[in-house]
Every structure is written in structure tokens, then in C-alpha cells.
């Protein structure tokens, strides 16, 4: 009995220490952007200075959960905004696992075909959670009190009405593209966009700090004109090691290198975390 009491007391004390540690590290009043290492797929997590959580895509499996637990304190079980850029398995699957564990207040996605079993399962799970759902169009903006704004650049309403019933092959083209702004810091999340989509929106962003390279670094996502306009300081590629698509393409890597853009890949460095106070930023 004495021994049990001692064990439980030690555990309680240690747990208290963990809480103190997390209280300090997760309340630094800075913006954290994490390109999660989820293998061949996308999952981007953001924690705002006031502790709101935003998730763009969930990756091809449940490893996004480990990423969330590495970057969220243990007591926070709410994700304020969840966005699915398009309903492909490598962006969607992990979102279902997230919904099973977290309260999600708002879900946004582009209006296109949700025909797969997986996508139907996601919709079912959203209903079960009672999450509010919204279709995203160019100009939509999530603004958070601490000065963070997340703005949708793509798709436009006209594009959607022209391609109302998108075929599976068009789904990458109708990817939701989001721009994050915090004071002077700007990050562009280009989902699986093609260069033709990027050309339509690059004038809207101005010079950015962080670019989530479109489509896991495939050769059809970027060209030098786009990069000249965006002029990012750092490019992050979310890609799985030895994937069967040959991502990222050497064309894209060389292009980024020739323009002196620092490039980080999740298959090489794991999670990519950028911390910003709105003026300066650093890679953690």
C-alpha cells in the first residue's frame, strides 16, 4: 500500500513537471508553422501566438497524429480550423484520424467531387463531430484575434461553377491554395497546384517568406517566372522517401537551387518547423 502510494505520487509529480514544461514552451506568443513529416502526402500544422490550431490536410496515414502531439500541448484537444485542399488520399486520410481524437470547430474545403469511400467516411465523421462545414473560394478569410489571417487564393467561384462536377483528374487543379499572413510574415501553402494555377495567383501574394512547394515538388508545379514573383526565402517540400512518383523532380530542385532558395524536405529532415514573431522568422 505504501509502495503504491509512493509510485502514484512520483507519477503525479512527474506529470506535473511535464505540464509546467509544456506551459512554458507552448506559450511563447509566436507563430509556429510545421510541415509535418507524414511520408508521401501533405499535412501542415499551425499554432498561432494565442494558441489557436490550424491544420491543412492530414497526410496519407495516421502519422499526422504524432506530428500534432509533438507540436500541441497535452491539454489542448481542439483544432480551430481544418482545411482539406482536395480529396486525394495522400491529403485526406489522416484527417479522419484527427477528427476521431480532436474537437474541430470549422472545416473548409473546395467544392469538388467527394466520390471515394474515404471522402464519404470523412464527411460522416464530420457530421458525427458536429463540425461546421464551409466551401472555400478566392477571397475567403479566417482572421484570428492575435493578428493571424488565413486567406483562400484558389479556387475562384467562376472556376468552380465552370467545373462544377470535377472529374478525378481535375482534383489537383482545383486544390485550395491558402496564404497565411502574420504582420510581415507570409507563407503560401500551394497544395497540389499546377504551374498554371500558380500563375493565376502569384500576383496576389506579393513577396513571401515560406513556400510549401506544390505537389510534393513535381516538375509541373513551379517555373522560374512564378518563383521570381513569389521570391520566397525558404521552400518546404513535403515528400516521402523513395516514393514511386519520383517526387521531388530534379527540375524543381535545380530551379530552387539556381535561385538560391533554401530548400528543406520532410524526407530528409522530418518535421519542418518555422517560428515567427511576425517580423523575423527562423527554422527550428
Amino acid at each position, binding site marked *: 500500500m505504501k509502495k503504491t502510494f509512493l*509510485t*502514484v505520487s512520483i*507519477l*503525479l509529480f*512527474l*506529470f506535473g*513537471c*511535464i505540464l509546467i514544461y509544456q506551459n512554458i514552451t507552448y506559450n511563447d506568443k509566436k507563430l509556429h508553422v510545421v510541415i509535418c513529416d507524414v511520408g508521401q502526402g501533405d499535412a501542415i500544422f499551425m499554432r498561432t501566438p494565442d494558441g489557436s490550431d490550424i491544420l491543412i490536410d492530414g497526410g496519407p*496515414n*495516421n*502519422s499526422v*497524429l*504524432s506530428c*500534432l*502531439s509533438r507540436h*500541441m500541448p*497535452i491539454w489542448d*484537444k481542439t483544432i480551430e480550423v481544418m482545411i482539406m485542399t482536395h480529396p486525394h*488520399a495522400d491529403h485526406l*486520410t489522416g484527417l479522419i484520424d484527427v477528427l*476521431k*481524437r480532436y474537437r474541430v470547430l470549422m472545416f473548409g474545403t473546395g467544392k469538388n467531387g467527394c466520390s471515394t*469511400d*474515404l471522402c*464519404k*467516411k470523412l464527411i460522416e465523421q464530420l457530421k458525427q463531430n458536429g463540425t461546421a462545414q464551409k466551401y472555400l473560394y478566392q477571397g475567403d478569410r479566417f482572421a484570428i484575434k492575435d493578428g493571424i489571417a488565413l486567406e483562400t487564393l484558389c479556387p475562384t467561384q467562376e472556376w468552380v461553377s465552370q467545373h462544377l462536377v470535377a472529374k478525378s483528374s481535375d482534383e489537383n487543379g482545383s486544390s485550395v491554395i491558402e496564404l497565411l499572413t502574420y504582420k510581415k510574415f507570409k507563407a503560401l501553402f500551394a497544395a497540389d497546384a499546377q504551374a498554371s494555377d500558380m500563375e493565376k495567383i502569384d500576383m496576389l501574394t506579393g513577396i513571401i517568406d515560406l513556400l510549401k512547394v506544390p505537389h510534393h515538388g513535381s516538375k509541373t508545379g513551379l517555373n522560374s517566372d512564378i518563383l521570381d514573383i513569389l521570391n520566397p526565402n525558404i521552400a518546404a517540400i513535403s515528400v516521402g522517401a523513395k516514393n514511386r512518383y519520383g517526387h521531388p523532380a530534379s527540375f524543381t530542385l535545380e530551379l530552387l537551387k539556381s535561385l538560391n532558395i533554401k530548400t528543406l524536405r520532410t524526407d530528409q529532415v522530418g518535421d519542418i518547423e518555422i517560428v515567427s514573431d511576425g517580423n523575423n522568422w527562423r527554422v527550428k
Partner: protein
Amino acid sequence: MNSKLLVILLIILSFRLYYFSQNQIHFANGQQISFETAILSQPQTIGGRQVFTANYKNQKIQISTGLLPEINYGDYTLIVGKISNQKNKVLMYFPKIETINNPANILQTSLKGVNIVRQKLIALFSKTLPSPSSSLLLGIIFGIKEQMPKSFTDNLRTSGVFHVIAASGMNVTLVGGFISIAFAYFLKRQIAIGLSILGIVFYAILAGAEASIVRASIMGILVFSAQILGRQTLAINGLSLAGFVMLFIDPTLISDVGFQLSFAATLGILYLKPLFGNKEGIASEVLTTVAAQTATLPILLANFGTYSVYSILVNGLVLWTVPILMMVGGVGAIIGLILPQLGQLLIYLCYPLLLYFEGIVNFFGKIGGVISIKALPWEFIAGYYCLLVSILIISHKEV
């Protein structure tokens, strides 16, 4: 065990195996079949499909189907589909699966009840602790693995502690012991022990009825019923009987890796560990690991082709946390089903130990240290076990 009895059991078993192999059904490719079955293995989600095994007239059929409808352990289903034979395996792709709900069927309702508890536990743990801590704790206490991220499962394998997430002997001992102590205060001893037996059965179904847990449960039930009858029994009798019962019911188990590992490891702990002498604390745990590994090495090598060099060290470093995690987390689980907040607090208490466990596993998982062998010659396996047996016989004579 009485050697005459053992011989008789072995003879009965060989008749059973012979009869079984004579009556095995052979399906034609493309043959349409329709059958009702309870799903007794949790479907794995692999690449956008659910994959699980179902039993049809003693034949195991591996079924692949889409993600919807979601199939859960314990569901009772009607399956209609076409057989496809591939290499030694009977497969069925995308059959029509319908969940049957018949409240009059006691088996169905009780399975459903157990599954509801199972899902509640998974939700309780995964909403309390972050991943992979929650899945590690679910694995340690209940042997539930379906939530575990693949990278962490790989690290558990590489570092040689994958066995902690298979429910087995230690879990059963704790479940039975806990119930009998808890009820012995205000019930007659016999009734308390009877309740522990029921508890073990419930636990085995909850944990997913894998070979290791069935083996441990049968042994546990024998030990506890021996207490009711007031008779002491030797663990080895329990092990032989458990093996006999399981193989008699399902002879295909003999080729099940989990079954082989579970029996070889238990034999190793019962026979080989005493050779190293009596030790206490961490030393005893290391010896248990060494004994179990010595007895299972060829099975591991033959089936997985890998052996982890650091596994004895890793086991020594983490195994002491397992009983604490089982007790604190297990009590947390029971309380959490009734009072979620209080249960959550107890589950939180496991978090520091889980972080330590994960730290060690991930550290050694990254280092690697895995020896791999492509094909293991049968001569090695036979020689290895003959050698072990002869060492045992010789040391036995000296005693």
C-alpha cells in the same frame, strides 16, 4: 506432467490433425460462396482497404474490401463473394458484406457488447493522451494495436520489444489477481475466483482473442480453478493443456507465428530460466528476456528474418514500467468507463513513463542494429532445438 498422459494427448492430437487435413475443403478459383461469420480479428486498414481474416468451414479466408462499410472486431456478418486462390492462401476480393443484427443470438449480442466497451476504451485513451503514447498504452494493457502509427510499430520491432503490445501472461495474471483480491474482501473466496475466471474470459475477448492471449487465458483459468478445487498445479500442465485444447479446436494454429512464439517463449521461461539461477528485480527481467529469446530465436528468424542486437538491453530498460502501466492504466480504464474525468487523471499519470518508454524505443529504433537473414535452413532450426533439449536433459540429471 505425467508422461503417459502426455503421450495419450499427443496421439489424440495427431488423429485430430489427420482428420482435419482429410476434411479440408478445397475451393475452386472463382467459386461463389456465402456464409455467416463473426469477425474475430480486427480489420487492418492497408492502402485504402480493410483486410481481415474470416473462418469458413475450418478454412481461413483473407478478405479485402473497401473502407465502407466499416467493419469492426466482434461484428457478425453475412459475406457473399468469389474465392480466389493464390499461393497457399485463400483470398476474397470485395465481397458483399452485410452486418447482421439478431438480438436473439446470445453470441452476437455479447460480442457486440464487448465491442462497445472496446470502442469506448479506445476513445477514452486516444482522447486523453497524444499519439503514439495512447496507442502504446492501449497495446500494453489490452493488446489493442489498430491505432498505432506505422513508424512507431517499426521502432518497436527494430528495438525488439514488440511483444509488450501483445496481451499475454502478465496481463491475465494481473486481471485475474486484481479481480480476486478486489472481491475477496466481501465475497466467498470461491465466488471471487469464479468472478476472476469470468473476468479473464471477458478480457481475452476484449483484447482481440489472439493466440498469445488465448494461451495465457487458458493457463490462467486452470491456475485459478485449481485454487477453487484447492489443488496446486504446475504451470507446465497448464501450458500443455492450453496447447492441446487450442490445437484440437483449430489445428491451423500450428502454423500461426503468434501461437508458436507464445508457446516457445513460455516453455523457455519455465524450463530455461531456472538454469540461470534465482535473481530479483531487473536482473530477473533480463533473464526472463534471455530465456524467452533463446527459446524463440529460430521462430523469429524463420518468420521475420531479423534479430535485434540491442533487444536484451532495451527489454531490461523498459520492462519494469510495464506492470506499473498495466495497473495504473488498467484501473484508469475501468474507472474511466464510469467516471471519465477521474479515469483520465489516472491515464495521465502513465504519461511520464510512456514518454520514457517511447524515448528508449525511438532511440534504439533509429540506431537499428538489426541482423537479417534471408532463408533459415531447417537443419539449423532442428539442430538448435535438439541442442537446447539435450542441454536441458543433461542439466536435469545433474540436479
